[in-house]
């Protein structure tokens, strides 16, 4: 389904915790898997019946997708366009940035309708006396499935057809969850399958993947490779868990501001080809957190920004170190480093690389001694690795400076280039307007003149997906 740009679409998000519970007589891995498979089969039939109900979050609208019945039967008939439901449910709004092969950005506006899964317990067709059975020596299992299904719809689609989509979509997800349990159950440990939604470059809608909870992204690489092959994706990561789409209200929470460059308007896309870093990072800078490090702390903060990028992309589980922790780390490495730390001196390449090695971040160092010239490797770096770059100047006669580079813009016709810089030397408050004014911006040739002789560290994104 190709979505023309600047249109509004309906996204139904069907969520609910469904309990799976029962008893096992044998507890070897094979028996556990069989029992869970049966439980899922039973559950899928239940969804495909009139027990399956959906309700709007304000609690007054109910519908039965199997039988096409609802609490508003006259208003929501089979052929009514599905946007008629908007009168009875609350919605949230979000947007999806689209990047097609021409690297043109466009936005698709989404109206998100959240629906809750409920089961009806009062179906008269199932008749039977109460049977109370007692069985001996058993094992009890219990699991809550966090079902989270997305169904995209054009507002003009007919309501009748849409309800069938709901049932099919939920059954499809349950089948995937069952597969996940069959694949990742080891011994007596049954991981809970969780749904993640990703925005992929060659698809207009979000793609849902089921991953087992409690298993690291590293271990899941084989599954991601299979998915990449299935979905026709290149070998750049798209499906790592931290890269999942954030719905309104689910944004990542951090003590620091994230992705401050997003508040800047981009250079004119008609004129420039833009290459930005991918993923998220935290903005660390001087004089934050009551640290008194103006004049010497900027490179420590550059390290924090780099490490935060690797954390948000799920490449490291370690927390971003504080300034003090970085100082301790360096002091503990060797005596010479300790002296530099004590003296609050400007850090050098060897210090930066030592810390990055500690965090297992592979990087390449370029030291340019000759006259200032724009390095040519920036654009390929952003295209291939998409990581933020640290740049700092050789201190001879001028003040030391350190920046993070976040992207490049190229105008092929006029042969001009701009670079997106973020200053770790910023000492102002953590407020977006000030930051936009002083810390982050697109700069032209003047930036390279300012930096004169400089060094770059380009962190490498780990291989694999």
């Amino acid at each position, binding site marked *: 389904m190709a979505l023309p740009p600047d249109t509004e679409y309906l996204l139904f998000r069907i969520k*609910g*915790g*469904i*309990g*799976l*519970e*029962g*008893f*096992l007589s044998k*507890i070897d891995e094979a028996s*556990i898997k069989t029992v869970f498979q049966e439980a899922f089969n039973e559950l899928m039939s239940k969804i495909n019946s009139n*027990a399956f*109900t959906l*309700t709007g979050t304000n*609690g*007054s*609208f*109910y519908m039965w997708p199997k039988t096409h019945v609802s*609490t508003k039967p006259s208003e929501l008939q089979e052929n009514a366009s599905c946007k008629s439901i908007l009168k009875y449910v609350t919605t949230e709004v979000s947007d999806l940035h689209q990047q097609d092969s021409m690297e043109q950005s466009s936005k698709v506006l989404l109206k998100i309708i959240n629906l*809750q*899964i*409920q*089961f*009806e*317990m*009062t*179906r*008269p067709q*199932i*008749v*039977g*006396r*109460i*049977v*109370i*059975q*007692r*069985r*001996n*020596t*058993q*094992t*009890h*299992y*219990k*699991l*809550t499935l*966090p079902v989270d299904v997305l169904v995209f719809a054009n507002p003009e689609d007919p309501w009748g057809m849409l309800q069938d989509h709901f049932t099919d979509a939920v059954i499809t997800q349950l089948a995937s969850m069952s597969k996940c349990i069959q694949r990742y159950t080891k011994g*007596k*440990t*049954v*991981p*809970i399958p969780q749904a993640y939604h990703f925005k992929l470059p060659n698809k207009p809608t979000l793609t849902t993947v089921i991953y087992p*909870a*409690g298993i690291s992204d590293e271990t899941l690489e084989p599954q991601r490779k299979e998915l990449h092959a299935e979905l026709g994706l290149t070998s750049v990561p798209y499906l790592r868990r931290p890269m999942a789409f954030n719905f309104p209200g689910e944004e990542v929470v951090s003590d620091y501001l994230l992705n401050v460059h997003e508040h800047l308007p981009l250079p004119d896309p008609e004129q420039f080809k833009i290459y930005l870093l991918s993923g998220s990072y935290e903005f660390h800078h001087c004089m934050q957190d009551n640290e008194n490090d103006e004049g010497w702390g900027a490179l420590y903060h550059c390290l924090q920004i780099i490490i935060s990028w690797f954390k948000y992309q799920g490449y490291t589980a370690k927390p971003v170190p504080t300034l003090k922790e970085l100082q301790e780390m360096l002091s503990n490495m060797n005596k010479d480093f300790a002296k530099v730390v004590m003296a609050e001196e400007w850090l050098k390449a060897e210090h930066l690389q030592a810390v990055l090695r500690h965090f297992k971040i592979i990087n390449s160092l370029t030291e340019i001694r000759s006259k200032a010239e724009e390095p040519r490797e920036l654009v390929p770096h952003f295209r291939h690795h998409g990581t933020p770059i640290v740049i700092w100047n050789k201190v001879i006669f001028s003040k030391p400076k350190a920046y993070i580079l976040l992207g490049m813009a190229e105008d092929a016709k006029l042969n001009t280039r701009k670079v997106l810089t973020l200053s770790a030397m910023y000492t102002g408050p953590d407020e977006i307007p000030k930051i936009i004014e002083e810390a982050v911006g697109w700069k032209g040739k003047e930036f390279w003149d300012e930096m004169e002789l400089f060094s770059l560290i380009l962190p490498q994104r780990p291989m694999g997906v």
Partner: protein
Amino acid sequence: MGRSYVIGEYSEKYLKKLKAEERYGTTGILLGQVTLAKTYIVFAARTPLKDQAELPPENPNEMNASDIEWVSEHARQVARMLPGGILVLGVFLIRPSKMTKEEAHDIFRKLATAVEAAVAKERLWNFTEDETAERIVLQVYTDSKKMKVQAYDLHNPQTPIKLLECKSSSLTAPWQIVEATINVDVNIPVPVTAERQFDKESLKGLNNWAKQIMQCSYLINGQFKEPESLLGEGSKKKATAEVQFLTAPVMIIDGEVDALIEDCGSSVVVKGTVRCRAYLHGSKSKVKDAIQALKRDVLNTVFIRCQMVFEDQVLNKNVGSLFSRIACKVTCVIDERLELSQLSAVAN
């Protein structure tokens, strides 16, 4: 606090008949409905005599602990048969003429408390804070036509006993009825250690199910209705309202990673479908009261059936073989709930 008691025609006639037969000292139980302002006494039934067919002691002061237990057990067995909305309200007594006012206050309080405690054992639910804890002893005087109600606040034994007039009313107007067919599917793991105390521990698993039922959402006649609205609103006929229940969503616990797999000694599975019903007096009942009464009936129905199965297995230490005979009698009718129409039919 202004609660008034209303006694229905049937019960009044029944009690007057007992008085006429000079059955002094007879005690029995009272059934009816408690609403926000009034309590309606719908039915009265005297406690059957003990095996030896002795007449009850003329002076209630002479009631001993086993007599009190006898009445309580009667109340408990009857409570099992009641539909939603109807409760055991207390006890009645045909007063002998010699009895003085001060006598037997103690006994009365003990009776009311014991009856309520026995009946409460059958419940998986508790009364809410705004529901009254008043239970009564209704006295039928030999020398006057009046019937007096002594009301005891069971939560606060220190509050003074209130002596109230009991108004009569025919109570024959049709009651509002809500019904539902409930699909039950409960899995209860019984821990290994609990093998001895079979009924208490096994049935704890029903508490989770009970909580879910009390929290679930509802629809009346296929539509959503606000809890504070009137049950009878919008419908022309006073037909039985059909209720649908939908499970409340299950909480997803953050940080939960694996399925729970634990050993248990044995398991109890309760599966099937029951028909439940609740009655509401008058035409001004609110939706939330109707739903609460119906949900409580669901819990009662399932819990009582489970208990009866377990009672078969556990030796009944307290009252021995006699009660198991009575219990058997009750078991036979357990699948036919006592219809309120049967009660009011008798009244007419």
